[in-house]
């Protein structure tokens, strides 16, 4: 029993929490931005896969790591544009469009990857982001060891949460975004163009999702393999609900979620083979479902979420 609690005392656990949380933070913020403008983006799983693939491929072909991140972001924005064209001006089903984008982006990733990188016994690798040694942070007691020695994109993820919170709640642009998600007709009456706001938000949100995917291949691991996103996108969609559509809570939710994940990974080694490892692997998905159940009634959903906006139609 003591061993189960001792896990919390190890710095390795807390460092792992931030590492596991990073793609979730990016993904959740991306999905949150789309939903704040009133559009559910189920393309997330495929967009993360494509970001992971294209970012890795860019670096594998000689680009530097930040260019890889940028390429991933641009690819995400392009899939976002496709999603936006179909769901905003055409007003098609956001569920089906999103799933279509996921299936398309994922299969396109595998196609491009297999085309450019021949099948090999050991997958080719790149040199990923190295942990930064930040002088003052590492001196902090307890959390210092976890906060320092992360790779640069992790800090970027945390900063993005702050930036998104600032934009959404402290700027006119944020007000326009939130109005569009609550009542696009009222927003239009105030001189906001709901169509433009939605398209912009989906593109920016999808770019964040793709960066979350790229973190997997450029920092967490050093190679790409199919199915590596493993439902993280769907977890992000659940986290948005858990966070009640607030960036700060999204950050907390992703960290909490990553804590459970990091804990179960270490628990596996302590418990050994007494409990099938698959039960531990189920934890993230079951937790996401529980998070939805707990928050479903309490969460304040953007009122125009999943409602297409057509001028002159109500």
């Amino acid at each position, binding site marked *: 029993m003591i061993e189960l609690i001792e896990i919390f005392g190890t710095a390795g656990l807390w460092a792992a929490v931030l590492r596991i949380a990073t793609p979730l933070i990016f993904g959740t913020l991306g999905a949150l931005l789309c939903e704040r403008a009133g559009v559910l983006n*189920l393309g997330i799983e495929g967009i993360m896969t494509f970001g992971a693939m294209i970012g890795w491929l860019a670096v594998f072909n000689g680009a530097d790591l930040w260019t890889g991140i940028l390429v991933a972001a641009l690819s995400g924005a392009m899939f976002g544009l*496709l999603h936006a064209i*179909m769901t905003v*001006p*055409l007003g*098609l*089903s956001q*569920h*089906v*469009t999103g*799933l*279509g*984008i996921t*299936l*398309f982006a*994922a*299969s*396109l990733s*595998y*196609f491009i990857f*297999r*085309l450019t990188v021949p099948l090999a016994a050991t997958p080719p690798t790149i040199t990923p982001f190295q942990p930064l040694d930040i002088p003052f942070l590492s001196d902090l007691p307890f959390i210092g060891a976890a906060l320092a020695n992360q790779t640069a994109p992790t800090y970027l993820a945390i900063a993005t949460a702050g930036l998104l919170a600032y934009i959404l709640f402290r700027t006119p642009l944020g007000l326009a975004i939130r109005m569009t998600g609550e009542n696009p007709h009222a927003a239009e009456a105030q001189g906001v163009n709901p169509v433009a706001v939605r398209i912009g938000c989906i593109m920016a949100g999808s770019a964040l999702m793709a960066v979350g995917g790229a973190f997997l291949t450029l920092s967490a691991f050093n190679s790409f393999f199919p199915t590596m996103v*493993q*439902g993280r996108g*769907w*977890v992000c*969609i*659940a986290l948005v*609900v858990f966070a009640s559509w607030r960036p700060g809570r999204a950050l907390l939710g992703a960290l909490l979620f990553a804590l459970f994940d990091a804990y179960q990974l270490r628990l596996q080694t302590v418990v050994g083979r007494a409990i*099938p490892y*698959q*039960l531990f*692997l*189920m934890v993230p*998905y*079951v937790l*996401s*479902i529980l998070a*939805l*159940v707990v928050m*479903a*009634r309490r969460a304040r959903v953007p009122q125009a979420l999943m409602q297409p906006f057509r001028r002159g139609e109500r």
Partner: protein
Amino acid sequence: MRLERRAHRPLALVLLAPVIAVGAALAISGILIALAGAPVFEAYRQILIGAFGSRLAITETLTRTTPLILTGLAAAVAFRARLWNIGAEGQFFVGAIAVAAFGAGFASHWPAWALIPSLLVAGAIAGMLLLLVPLMLRLRFGVDEVVTTLLLNFVAVLFVSMMIEGPLRDPLAFGWPQSVPVPEEGELPRLVERSRLHVGLLIAVVIGFVIHLAQSRTVFGLKSKAVGLNPKAAVFAGVPLATTLVGVACLSGGLAGLAGAIEVMGVKGYVTTDLSPGYGYAGIIVAMLANLHPVGVIAAALFAAAMFVGADGMSRAIGIPSYIADVTVALSLLTMLVALFFTQYRIRR
């Protein structure tokens, strides 16, 4: 330029939509093939040969069509009632593992006439139960079933993995994680000798027509349509929302579970975690290509299966990755959505 709603939905246009959608998807994939440096028409010719070019190719395509019809129907009946069952993949797997468990368990010495139907029912019930969980969460707590059914897919595959490495492990499989085999009496009879094609295809096709009749001729069919078109109006008209959705979920989950059961009993004989190359997800595309029509699902499933089987042959012949089939099929979902939109709207200057 602006979009204007059509007063009528021209029937010819609705029927043409899938053809246009598939054509557009093939054209876009053609660009990808050209970018990959391969001859486009030769690639498509090879896909056709790979799917229909020989007796073996045709039976393989039809074998692959079978699970796609059933998962396609699973999505079609659910989507018609606006029940977003994206969990057919997981339901497929629990249906398959239920067959292995039931077949290896107390039913192992039953004669074929009793064993085959009970195994099919076992698979269907397993799929049903898996979908009832997210439906209950929706009815009781208001949780959107899209995300829960998606998440349960991963749980289901992990559960299957746990079973085939644990209690249902085949001790004679040299350490490979696979389930105990289905007893011989539980295997579905072949339709064509010296091929993998089995009677599952007939079962799937018949179910497609039966569902069509049920949807157009029965009260349940009308209720499930009403719930999908406008839940509030349906409730106002006296349609019980929860009971109707439970019925739809049992049908949808049951079909996906049945797909898994039939795949094990007809093709593989045992369960592994790669039993389905994404049949559950492809079923969504099949359903949309058919515009949710049960008989259309059969044709759409044949198209998807032909792409998948044909692309394998094409890949061996000219070296373009067979993933191009997945790209084309996924694209056809997006183009179908757009094509359907233009059956309802037109562009006016």
